[in-house]
């Protein structure tokens, strides 16, 4: 077991590619994406509209070493400010296999 930080990001589907590029650039070793999530936030209700794709969110999760967290979240901040979305950081243990 290795202590890591879990970073969870919720972002509009159309901004997903941008976020993944930023994660790659920040040097994370991997990530997991769940598409087609919906939700409600400052920018109102999303979902119930699969037509335009404009109101659909993606959920991205990446586990990374604690020392990388600042770099990752700082690189995400401008995109989240511009496009909306949420970023949560929490503690977890990674099973080394």
């Amino acid at each position, binding site marked *: 077991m290795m202590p890591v930080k879990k970073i969870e990001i919720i972002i509009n589907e159309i901004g997903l590619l941008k976020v993944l590029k930023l994660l790659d650039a920040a040097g994370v070793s991997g990530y997991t994406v769940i598409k087609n999530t919906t939700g409600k936030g400052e920018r109102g209700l999303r979902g*119930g509209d*699969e037509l335009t*794709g404009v109101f659909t969110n993606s959920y991205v999760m990446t586990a990374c070493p604690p020392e990388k967290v600042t770099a990752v979240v700082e690189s995400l901040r401008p995109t989240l400010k511009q496009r909306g979305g949420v970023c949560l950081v929490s503690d977890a243990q990674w099973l080394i296999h």
Partner: protein
Amino acid sequence: MDFNLLISNFLNPPILFFFLGLAAVFVKSDLEIPAPIPKILSLYLLFAIGYKGGVGLAAGGLQTQIVVVLVAAVVMATFVPLYAFFVLRRKLPVADAAAIAATYGSISAVTFITAAALLEKLGIAYGGYMVAAMALMESPAIIVAVLLYRLSSVDRSGAAFSWRELCRAAFFNGSVFLIMGSLVIGALSGDAGAKTLKPFTNDIFAGGLCFFLLDMGIVAAKRLGDLRRAGAFLTAFAILLPLINAALAIPLAYVWGLSQGDAFMFTILCASASYIAVPAAMRLSIPEANPSLYVPMSLAITFPFNIIAGMSLYLAIINYFWS
């Protein structure tokens, strides 16, 4: 205005399914078309309409008439977002004005398809190249709007402007790319291809359209609430703009000598507003614009207005002048 026309249009199954979708939301039914079915239905409609257009284009050959129509299409698709932007700018922030301008400068394939079904019912012909015109009209408004936005706003994001990304969003976004590609394939693959694909592209088309409009009704009704935020100005705009655009398109079509069917389809293209290609492109290129304005305007007002009242009105006027 021909009342029978209105009724006959209204009793078309696709239109009725649109109302069924509206009704489902009003009575709080839990009826819904689960994702990603609406997406695949829209891909199917674009595929079919593009392919049929390509077949029609190949059958027709290239004549001056076609060139005229295509030029007219590009001209209107560039002019509409320009004038709309300056109207909207009086009341709205730059980003929203640009995004709504793009929405109204571009076109709605489903409105086009519904109009085509009406013509078919009435036995009025139109050229296969109208589909090409439609495909050409999707992108210019996106380019114009993004340029207007870049020119009018202080760039807050600090991101370098990339022509490359803009063109990709305008010309290669999924909807535009698929309809263009299907058009080319329809034109290339000839009679044999058209015959094998007919059951898929033509025969079951009406059914796919009914399902799609059922979903559009549901989504439109769900988005109606957003309009309160949009306010009276934008609500009026969403009805007036199609009327103004039609009022511009019909005389142009007359002067340029378009046939009755072509004139009607051209008018519909100008009067319709995008709710698939443009919203996706705006979300990418002008993320500051609020989709809760431009999506419900085009989807919950302009689209139903056009298919219920607009279409019959434009056709009545055209019938009057062309006969």
